[in-house]
């Protein structure tokens, strides 16, 4: 399962970077989304995939069962998803405004005025 996920993550990184390198500003956004999702999956996988019980301390004991799933990667991913959601919303508005102001969706043409 791990190796399957690893291949998937690798493909998502590759697709994300490929999209970022495209000239279209919309594909840039799609690339960033892929990249952040790939990162989330990577955190999930590197935390260890186990068929274990939930990390809940049974009544009357003070520690959770010996084999339990690590809850922290999921908490991290949740935080990262929320952040990337906000950033994506911002990015979409920015791209829209940039398109309105500059009048093109071609990143190469956007560089023209900068240098």
């Amino acid at each position, binding site marked *: 399962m791990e190796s399957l996920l690893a291949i998937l993550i690798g493909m998502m990184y590759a697709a994300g970077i490929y999209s*970022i390198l495209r000239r279209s*500003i919309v594909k*840039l956004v799609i690339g*960033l989304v892929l*990249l*952040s999702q*790939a*990162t989330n999956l*990577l*955190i999930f*996988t*590197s*935390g*260890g995939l186990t068929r274990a019980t939930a990390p809940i301390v049974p009544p009357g004991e003070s520690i959770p069962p010996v084999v339990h799933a*690590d809850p*922290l*990667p999921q908490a*991290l991913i949740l*935080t*990262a998803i929320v*952040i990337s959601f*906000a*950033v994506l919303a*911002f*990015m979409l508005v*920015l*791209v829209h*405004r*940039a398109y309105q*102001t*500059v009048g093109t969706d071609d*990143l190469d043409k*956007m*560089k023209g*005025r*900068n*240098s």
Partner: protein
Amino acid sequence: MKMLLVLPVLIPFFTAILLLFTLRWRYTQYFISTLGSVSLLVSSIQLLLYVRHEGIQVIQIGNWVAPFGISLVGDLLSVIMVLLTAIVGLAVNIYSIMAIDLKRQAYGYFPLFNLLLMGVCGAFMTGDIFNLYVWFEVMLMSSFVLMILGGERAQMEGAVNYVTINLIASALFLTGLGILYGQTGTLNMADLAYKLRVDNQGELIASSAMLFLIAFGIKAAVFPLFFWLPASYHTPPAAVSALFAGLLTKVGVYALLRSFTLFFVHDAEFMHMLILIIAALTMITGVLGAASQFEFRRILSFHIISQIGYMIMGLGIFTPLAIAGSVFYIIHHIIVKTNLFLVSGIVHRLKGSYDLKKLGGVYKSHPFLSLLFVIPAFSLAGIPPLSGFWAKFILIKAGLDMQNYWIVVVALIVSILTLYSMTKIWNEVFWKKAPDSKNTIPVPRKRALAIYICPVCVLALLTVIIGLAVEPVFVLAQQTAEQLLNPTQYIIAVLGASQ
């Protein structure tokens, strides 16, 4: 007294909330924002004195014991950075009152400004690596909005660059963090430091270290990763550029200093050599880039890059003196760089341009302002007795002690080229005769100009003071370096002596 550790985050946070409620009243905004900046400054001075006197201070948020909860840690490096943030924050805050147009102010300039300060302070104070990521995002989000506030064409183009590269850096940082967590099972920096020192590290730690180096390197704008900076920093208003120039890249440098002294300490020889080479290339490309530019703020932007090289150089040499040099350089650089950008804003206000070819004659019309440019400019180039001279002197001394002659040569040449760039600005903007064009810019009133000049004066004065009274600052930098190179103190302070 432990509350002091939380204040650098809480003060800007509450200020921002109050400011959001009072968006309609201009003068109330000025008052609240300035009050917030002043109290941030006061509390950070107290924090520095407290930490210097009592040693490293830790607060566990929500009373979760160290490796499980999030710790806020105030060691000397953190509190020095917070103090510098507060100084720059206050200066830019006062400057912004006149320099930011009313439309931008009405759309929430001051709340965003305070949220940015909160993000920066949070990044400096946190002792948890994932929390660092979160603070980075808080800081980035406010900087994104500050960058596009106003919506001019150049701002949009710059912002697309800036946002994209920063999001990629965040993704890389998060990737490195995920791998690190998978290998060690902890996110607390002190715990990481302990575990990575005790255990034999897994192979993946090296890839994690590289991802961190690249992610922080993008944020700090080091050699192959700096192209976003000169493409975006000159687009927003001068006050915003000054804030970004002073603080944002230095957060990247801070993160590099922190991670490569605290927990990525294995394979040190290779790492330090790599960092030294990056430092040399950063210095050279930055200063050469500046030499070819003819836009006031773009020259200054390229100089940020070359100066980052000096700070990284100290980390690469990795002796107590070199790390002290890096810390001293950061102290000097933040003040000076902010000041130069503020001066460029005043020149723009007076003459209506940032283009060196269209400018001129400022010395004749405003001699005092010219003096205020000369102080930070000469300090940047390293003319004694200003602060930049001592910063460079310490680093070069450290390089000579370690017999790294090539990096010393590079540092000295770059220093001369910096002087060349600064004299270029001086000649073109201040000394040469004003080109014959009708100056249609309305002359600002005396009182308005005073608000512009006041923060610049104070920062210039600070530069001179650091230059003349170098010893206390140097001793502070040395103590910081000692703390950074002996992480046992840090680990014990966070985890307790039991480990």
